[in-house]
């Protein structure tokens, strides 16, 4: 039986105008890799077991706090978060409406997850260098940026073409028993090419002890330098609490975009 893809479903229905404003995207890495990233001056795609290729992961809109369903073992790492301007979306990217790591690992055990197989193809939305693509996904799945950032999926999804109804079911199913909460409903952005840090970088969150590395990054990004927030690191704090702290601080930056008028194309 052939199933339609999310990409084709979005193309088949009219998008509202104006679209929600494009939001920043965030890449989360481990503190131990931060100096290397700064030295390289770029984020590099890394091998991904779910897709079998080198991939660079971002979360659209910054919702990166995932206590248990992260596809890597990053939940045991002290995080470093890099928030990029939405203009980065003008590059080649692909989007998924949920955490592919959780789907690929099989930790999401529900009928919707099964119905969405093969999720790699069915849920993929090609960016085609168009920053409006994730805006359309937000619009069709959530309604607007505010609802998206609060994780409120639009109930009208059930009236939209396949696979919208199944995605709605997936995003609204209570998966807390699997250690997955509502933050599963964060759009995932994947890029397959290196991303330079010299441009687009808006904000960085890192442990205080790596301030020296950030100073190098600051010089690298001049004159468009990023804002920053550091967290205390005289001991190794619970990474989940640190991630929550970073997400809260990143949200302050993201809210500036949330309130802006969107594209009318």
């Amino acid at each position, binding site marked *: 039986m052939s199933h339609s893809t999310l990409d084709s479903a979005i193309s088949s229905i009219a998008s509202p105008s104006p679209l929600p404003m494009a939001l920043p995207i965030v890449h989360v890495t481990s503190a131990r890799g931060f100096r290397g990233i700064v030295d390289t001056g770029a984020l590099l795609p890394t091998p991904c077991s779910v897709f079998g290729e080198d991939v660079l992961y971002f979360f659209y809109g910054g919702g990166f706090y995932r206590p248990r369903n992260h596809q890597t073992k990053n939940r045991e790492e002290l995080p470093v978060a890099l928030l990029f301007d939405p203009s980065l979306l003008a590059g080649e990217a692909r989007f998924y409406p949920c955490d592919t790591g959780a789907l690929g690992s099989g930790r999401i055990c529900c009928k919707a997850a099964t119905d969405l197989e093969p999720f790699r193809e069915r849920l993929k939305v090609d960016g085609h260098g168009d920053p409006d693509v994730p805006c359309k996904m937000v619009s069709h799945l959530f309604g607007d940026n505010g609802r998206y950032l609060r994780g409120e999926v639009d109930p009208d999804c059930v009236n939209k073409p396949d696979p919208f109804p199944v995605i709605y079911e997936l995003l609204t199913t209570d998966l807390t028993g699997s250690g997955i909460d509502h933050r599963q409903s964060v759009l995932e952005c994947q890029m397959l090419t290196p991303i330079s840090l010299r441009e687009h970088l808006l904000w960085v969150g890192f442990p*205080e002890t790596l301030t020296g590395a950030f100073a190098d990054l600051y010089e690298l990004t001049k004159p468009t330098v990023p804002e920053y927030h550091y967290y205390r690191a005289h001991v190794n704090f619970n990474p989940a609490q640190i991630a929550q702290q970073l997400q809260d601080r990143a949200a302050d930056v993201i809210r500036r975009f949330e309130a802006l008028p969107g594209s009318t194309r």
Partner: protein
Amino acid sequence: VTIKHEFDLLGHDCPLGEYPAPVTPVGRLGDQMVYIYVNEDDTPHIQDVLDDVTYTPHNRVVNETLAKFDFLNDRLFAFSADSVVSYSAAREVQFFESLLSDPHFAGRNPFIRLSFAKRVATPGVLLPELERCLSYLAEKSSDFMALWYSKERPLISTLLAEYRVKLPLDVQQFLRPLIWDSKRAPVLSAFEAKVAHLCGTLADSYVYHTDTSDSPYDFYFEAPNVVGHQFRTFVECKATSQAVGIDLIDRSVETWVREHAQDPFRRYWIVSAAGFTPDAMHRAQQCGIELLTLDNLVSRSNRITSPFFVEERSAIFGKTGKFAFFAHRSDQPIELLKATAAYVDVVQSPSVIPSQLLVVLDFSGWKGDFPDLTRDSLHSAHTQALLRYQNSVLKMRSIFEANESGYATVWRNYLLSPECLSSDGRENLRRVLKWQVRARLNVGLCYAGGEMAERLVTLSAKLRRELLAEASTGTPPLTTRIDSLRKETQLLLRVASETMVSEGNEIVADRLITTDSDIDDAITELADLAA
């Protein structure tokens, strides 16, 4: 307790990816591999490991060292992958202080030091680390340094709120090199203070004043220097020359001593001679400066909290009469200054407070360059010394405030006790009068401040001159002097008590000296009593 015994520490994870660093204990709790993190409320967080576990296993030596590791109450710190120590979470501040007392610790990453210093949160520890980070950033990115400081300033001010430390708005004030007035050679830097502050209002501003007037307060460091002329650095040279960008004129330690012969403080110089010959020490000796050679004192100066050290320094200063001459040899003058900074911390205690710190850098045998010795580095070393001093003063203050009966009361009772006045107790009393009372007086000065302090200085100088004149004539019959000294001591203690009254202490003073006339009256009264 059951859980504690089930935990098997296998190794650690270093999430920062570089050492030295706090590291995360990794081990087996029952059947489960776990990481032990710290929650923001300071409680331990046990994180199950779901995926593959990666960690640095501990070798046999480390395992033996950490055999008593208590994962609920202890934490790990690693100097390297194979050098791991544990410390009690309850004594984390002390552990961090001990790490920071080593100036070479984490030398490549000052921000680790700063993060620990923030946990300690005292001016003497935190401000030097702030300056260290600023210097580091100044070299890397001066733009970021300014931004970083603007964000750190309010944070650190909050951390030091109880000390009322006021950080300058302009970051450059931290980094501004000390202006050197060659006309004033050989005093490299004279941090003068107006002695105008109560201890509680010490921290008017953490800045160097660099006004160019001819006042004696051209260069002064307001905040920590509560007693005037507390710190000086003397650069000795045998011929006019230039060193580290500073024009030197032909001056020697003998000249300096001679010219300052009338300085009421000079008897308590701590002289630190660095250099390449013992010449300066010997000549200082010939000037009447008692020699105290304790190279090992510096090497152990980081252990200022050890009981051994407390005893040792008491013994040292108990034997010291006219001058304390502290000698340290090093081929690296800047190392000397750093050591001196630590040394200031050593000598600042309620029992031993030098009235003046004189640092002598002996350039008499100077040949070649000193790549590490620059005006900035001297400035930095001085700053550290001063900050340590400030911290000591604040500690002293807390000691007084914590003592329910009051330090002055304790000493008053002791001095007036029969055992102290007995023949066996005379030597003790003599020492007490020479050192403890002076110390008490100086602490009193910290409280008194302003004009009051200066008058007290005059009074104490008279007392010291009497004592030293007597000592210089051999072994005097102290009996004839003891009563007047006791009375004078009482008077001094009353004065000190009075200042404590102003601090809310309940000690009642029955006399207050406020004017020169009062001082003269007191001396007359003492003379009458002695007669």
